[in-house]
């Protein structure tokens, strides 16, 4: 009852605000949340499908092709073999050729999509003969599976999140809500990787987002289920695990019967895992076989040029030569835990919604920076909580998006996706600066003081823009063939580290302010 009232008061304020400013986008907002969410998601669909017209990872590039072929191959395997054989090397399932190395939920998703493909284009998923299958219809169908997953999982999650978030912080203006939806839905990195490069991050990220929304709306059990599903779709979701763990632990500790609460959550987690892993639970070996597929420790601490600590510092310290993989694994684990410890402690001591969002950002950033076997695409994970917090710090957020895109630029070039990269980048600049909005560049300009930091940041920004062009046009010197990749990595890494410091301090500042005024805030 109380909550409803509060919501309405918020709404009235929103209307007043809307009339006051001469916002150019007023026409979009006057009909209410549902209609502008619909409108923005239509636009999101348009952008996604137009991006999907372009090339994908490994197009026309035998014998290994790329992620597109990997996903198609998984559909081929799951559709043609029984579930028990999916993760086992056999004559029918050659694990060295894009063997399934994601958790079972991905396998089930591949199975469903495989059935869809088999219905419309049987040739694209026949065992053995369909390897490297590429055709107009095949591409369309594959693209459609990503689009539909996005539409079915990510879009509703965004709506759920917006509902939960703006119920908690009901002081937002309508324009802010619309802007926030836009930011989350049209995240250039996510669109580029899912609909250009070809992956299903929208599913795991969508589930994680729904879990976040569930936490914000105090449905902890549901959050556990959703997050476990996310984990079971892509093990990369572990990046968020410390935040979920610490926040829920902190919350439980403050309740009447902490042990009971914790065991309830534990049971739900175990139950969800058991359901997802059911086909592999009949014996220890089967389950261990699947587990061993999920953790590719033999692949070395880093690949290519990722803007994380290990890869960047390898310019000076040759980690791979100095230490065996075994000890590197230990190093990276210790470093990651140390990096996310501060934010975890903060959440255990003073769990709060906003602190939780910061915790997600901090833990995923520390995983990106310090964990084992990180890929360029993993920047998507820190980027998700960053978009959720975008309203708190619009300027740093824009910069983060810029460097996230920038760090993926070499990958994008390899995939032949430069045009969508440029178009999405430009689109973001436009969308991040809606005319007449609060973030209108022209209105804010004179309010920012000229400090050394801002000058340095501007210089680095300009440098990164120039580096885009240099990377495309100039041939690197013979002695350092990967000079430009290294530069891109260095520039991105330095910014990510800065962000990690910035957001960690922000989270802790939040706690000092929060412990005092947590109760006061609730009455607002």
């Amino acid at each position, binding site marked *: 009852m109380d909550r409803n009232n509060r919501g309405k008061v918020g709404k009235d304020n929103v209307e007043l605000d809307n009339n006051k400013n001469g916002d150019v986008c007023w026409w979009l907002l006057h009909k*209410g949340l549902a*209609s502008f969410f619909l409108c923005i998601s*239509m636009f999101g669909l348009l952008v996604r499908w137009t991006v999907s017209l*372009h090339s994908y990872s490994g197009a026309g590039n035998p014998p290994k092709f790329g992620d597109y072929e990997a996903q198609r191959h998984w559909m081929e395997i799951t559709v043609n073999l029984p579930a028990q054989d999916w993760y086992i090397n056999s004559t029918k399932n050659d694990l060295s050729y894009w063997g399934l190395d994601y958790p079972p939920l991905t396998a089930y998703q591949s199975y469903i999509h495989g059935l869809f493909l088999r219905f419309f284009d049987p040739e694209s998923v026949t065992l053995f003969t369909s390897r490297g299958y590429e055709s107009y*219809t095949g591409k369309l169908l594959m693209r459609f599976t990503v689009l539909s997953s996005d539409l079915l999982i990510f879009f509703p999650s965004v709506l759920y999140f917006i509902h939960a978030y703006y119920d908690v912080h009901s002081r937002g203006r309508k324009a802010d809500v619309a802007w926030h939806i836009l930011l989350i839905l049209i995240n250039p990195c996510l669109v580029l990787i899912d609909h250009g490069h070809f992956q299903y991050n929208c599913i795991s990220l969508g589930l994680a987002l729904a879990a976040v929304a569930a936490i914000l709306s105090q449905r902890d059990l549901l959050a556990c289920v959703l997050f476990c599903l996310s984990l079971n779709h892509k093990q990369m979701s572990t990046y968020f695990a410390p935040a979920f763990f610490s926040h829920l632990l902190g919350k439980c500790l403050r309740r009447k019967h902490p042990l009971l609460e914790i065991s309830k959550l534990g049971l739900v987690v175990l139950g969800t895992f058991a359901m997802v892993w059911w086909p592999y639970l009949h014996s220890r070996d089967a389950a261990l076989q699947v587990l061993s597929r999920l953790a590719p420790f033999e692949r070395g601490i880093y690949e290519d040029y990722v803007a994380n600590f290990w890869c960047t510092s390898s310019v000076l310290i040759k980690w791979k030569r100095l230490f065996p993989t075994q000890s590197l694994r230990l190093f990276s684990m210790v470093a990651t835990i140390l990096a996310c410890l501060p934010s975890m402690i903060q959440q255990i001591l003073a769990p709060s919604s906003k602190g939780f969002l910061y915790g997600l950002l901090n833990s995923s950033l520390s995983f990106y920076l310090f964990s084992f076997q990180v890929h360029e695409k993993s920047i998507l994970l820190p980027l998700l909580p960053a978009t959720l917090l975008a309203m708190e710090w619009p300027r740093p957020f824009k910069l983060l998006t810029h460097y996230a895109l920038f760090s993926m630029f070499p990958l994008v070039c390899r995939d032949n996706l430069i045009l969508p990269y440029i178009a999405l980048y430009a689109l973001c600049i436009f969308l991040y600066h809606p005319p007449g909005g609060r973030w209108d560049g022209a209105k804010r300009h004179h309010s920012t003081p000229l400090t050394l930091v801002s000058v340095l940041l501007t210089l680095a920004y300009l440098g990164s823009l120039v580096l885009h062009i240099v990377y495309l046009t100039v041939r690197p010197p013979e002695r350092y063939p990967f000079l430009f990749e290294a530069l891109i990595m260095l520039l991105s890494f330095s910014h990510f580290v800065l962000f990690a410091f910035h957001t960690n301090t922000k989270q802790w500042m939040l706690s000092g302010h929060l412990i005092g005024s947590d109760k006061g805030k609730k009455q607002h």
Partner: protein
Amino acid sequence: MASRQSMLQNHPEICRHLLWFFGVAACVKLLLIPSYHSTDFEVHRHWLALTRSLPLSQWYSDETSPWTLDYPPFFAYFEYFLSFFARLVDPQIVDVHQGLNYEADTVVYFQRISVIVSDLCLVYGIYRLTRKLEAKKRVAMWILVIWSPALVIVDHMHFQYNGFLLGLLMLSISYLQDGRDVMGGFLFAVLLCFKHLFAVAGPVYFVYLLRHYCRGGLLKGLGRLAAMGTVVVAVFAAAFGPFFYHGQIQQVISRMFPFGRGLCHAYWAPNFWVFYIILDKGLAFLLKKFGIDIPTPAASFTGGLVGDSSPFAVLPQVTPLSTLIMVLLALSPCLVKIWKNPHPGSVARWISYAYTCGFLFGWHVHEKASLHFVIPLAIVAVQSLEDAQHYFLLSIATCYSLFPLLYEAQEYPIKVVLLLLHSMLMWFGFSAKFSKVKPPTISDNKKTRKKGSSSSSSRSGEEGEFVIGWGGKCYIIGIVIVETWGQLLHPYFLGDKLPFAPLLLISIYCGVEVVYSWVWQLKRIMAD
């Protein structure tokens, strides 16, 4: 009061906002670069090569490719101008022989981006038209024109330069509205020398300029007539002069007016002739039922009507001259109206009406030509509630009639989402513009307000609320039915039989709305 306020608004701000709208659209258009393009793409590529590699005297006589130059000279000069950059990008683009059916990335990127950049002309036209309007009207019009799905489908997927040409038309209209008649007439003459299909509005321009510009006594009027005549003649001389000099004028004219083509295009545009053909088929069928023997026409029903043979069994043959007469007849009430009261406020309405007539009764009309009246009608649509309601349906129907242009599966989601997005934006834009009170405060109030406004029958433009009547709702539901029939039910029930039927159905269904719109516009003009 509102107008005074808008006068105070600073123009750089409007410009910045408009460019934002354009920028967002341009990003989507960039993403559309690899999408399907029709043979028009090769047509324009060949024109680039032709104008760059051949001397001017051979432009209109070259036959290296079936896609001969059939636009007026200014368009050829435009291609000549573009070919300068094309050669810098990739010399093969402008090679008459080597470049035939050239499909490399360079040529696709170059041509697509040239369309996007040339859209700036439309942006400038819209800027001139909207700079003095109040904010709500201005933004509504930007949504209608800058984000027009029809333009995206025709220009940026199918491939043409309509945005640029319509920009000239909009500029011309904006000058006429400002009372600067010479400039308006000059720009229209220029437009005609770019694409002569725009000539349908010629009579409107003629009568309007004659009555509005050439007035103030006999002597002054004649003087002004002479001045205007000089301007127009100068434009045409600049366009056709060089060809006249080379003795090519006959060739140019014969290329520009290929009456050897049939009454209808391969895919029938949703106009009057669709109903004429259907009536003919129906009558022939009935007569046969009654045992009267009639010769079956040579042209087949499903194969379209390209070619010269008479396709009619019962009704009289239609000639280019008869279509011309019909267009003029349809135009005449409007011309009389202009003669009586030539005021600049209605220019956009009259010009749109002229293009509607041309579309409805013209010879060999392309479905793309619906852009010629839908885009200028946007100027009118923001003026009053009735116009907005009329535009809403018309815009949806004409955009839907463009669907068959993109027949490949890959573009299907794009055209559907574009149309949905456009309808939604129109709906939001119009209902924000035309609402009784300022935006609804609490959603519960909505129902009661709706009742109130419908009882007080909104006749006073600004005051009413934007609602779609039951007729409109039924029509929109009908579009969904027609589309599901064409996409799902027809292939399911009939298989490969009658492949032309779904397209025909779309033509007829959209034709109904175009005919309705024509009647509505005529009534509106007569009532003014």
